[in-house]
């Protein structure tokens, strides 16, 4: 196992989050109140500029059934394409964290959150990346968190030039990363169905 030089440490191995992940990361959903504030339920803070949007979806397993105990985390830039991080490309609004924790309805597996649409983000070698949300998905039966991205249906021109989308050899698989846009009660809603298996298996990344 000489994968790394022995002077380096090796990463701690992943284990499934299990069925009771909510106790640790969203105890209110497990059925009890313990912390002054749970983290990850306000993605943008009060001062975020840009278009307010809602993102909704479902995670579907290989038996075509919704996964009702999945937990997702989202990581996104603000409307100017800056992440709330020292290396995030520029300043963000006061209170903007850009990170959210998303849990499903235990009966239906549907999930959703409110945020702002991110701007284009500077990619490697000076190539702009189309606006996107980064997702990390854990659940019982998932041994190591799954990474994917949601792009926006109404950004067709930017998506066509996106260096990450273009790296995916199979054009039909690229479509699995596009959130479908609709307007409901005056709010722009993007729907992102994540499929773990099947012909339309979502593209997952080794990042």
């Amino acid at each position: 196992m000489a994968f790394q030089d022995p002077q380096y440490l090796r990463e701690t191995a992943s284990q499934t989050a299990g069925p009771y992940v909510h106790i640790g990361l969203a105890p209110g959903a497990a059925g009890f109140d313990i912390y002054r504030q749970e983290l990850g339920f306000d993605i943008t803070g009060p001062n975020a500029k840009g278009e307010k949007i809602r993102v909704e979806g479902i995670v579907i397993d290989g038996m075509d059934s919704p996964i009702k105990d999945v937990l997702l985390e989202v990581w996104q830039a603000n409307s100017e394409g800056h992440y709330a991080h020292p290396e995030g490309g520029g300043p963000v609004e006061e209170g903007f964290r850009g990170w959210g924790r998303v849990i499903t309805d235990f009966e239906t597996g549907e999930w959703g959150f409110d945020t702002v649409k991110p701007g284009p983000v500077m990619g490697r070698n000076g190539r702009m990346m189309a606006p996107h949300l980064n997702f990390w998905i854990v659940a019982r039966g998932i041994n190591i968190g799954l990474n994917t991205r949601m792009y926006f249906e109404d950004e067709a021109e930017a998506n066509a030039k996106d260096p990450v989308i273009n790296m995916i050899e199979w054009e039909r698989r690229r479509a699995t990363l596009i959130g479908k846009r609709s307007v409901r009660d005056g709010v722009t809603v993007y729907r992102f169905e994540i499929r773990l298996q099947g012909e339309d298996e979502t593209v997952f990344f080794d990042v």
Partner: protein
Amino acid sequence: MKPAEFYQRNREIHPPALTPNYKTSVARSPRFSLISLQNSMSEITGPTFGHSDIDAIDNDLIKNYAKAGDPIGERIIVHGRVLDENARPVPNTLVEIWQANAGGRYRHKKDTYLAPIDPNFGGCGRTLTDENGYYFFRTIKPGAYPWRNWVNNWRPAHIHFSVFGTGFVQRLITQLYFEGDPLLKHCPIVHAIPDADAIDRLVARLDLNATIPLDTIAYKFDIVLRGRRSTLFENRLEGN
């Protein structure tokens, strides 16, 4: 500023997605290969947390849900450091844990195991590492519990850990096990990990030096997140 990317994840020490002895993984494992992606700003950044996000008592599971007394069970300290693959401490990073009570029962509306709920035990805690990457929890040693996989599967005593790091690609969920647990060698979730050394590093060691005499037993558990290269990549707009 030119950012540095993280080392490629060594997938050989992690469980693969599909591990049929852990039955739930069969329908929940992607079948296509992952698409390998070089880090961009979207990967090397990640959320940051501060002391305004949490309270000091959040890392004391003996007290953070106590109503009319302390929870039942063996009082333990779990402590250690969060490091990266370069053996450098990861300071100010959020560590969250959750676990069953001493009887092996979770405070979760979906857990129906017949062991009783402990009225004084919530079963979750969180803390930030200090400037040396050090973290500390006080809790109750969790009990083993049965689960539906094979008809007679029992999870070894374990504490679930969630850790962030500085970049979203360091995000990790794992489980801490206890030295000497006879159930370890029978657990399909543990043995989803193909590498014996990687399993061994999930086993917390009794730490008599950190034990508080006549009060609390201690276990030490270090966590290693992905490390970063020292070379930088270009992310300035072409032509600038």
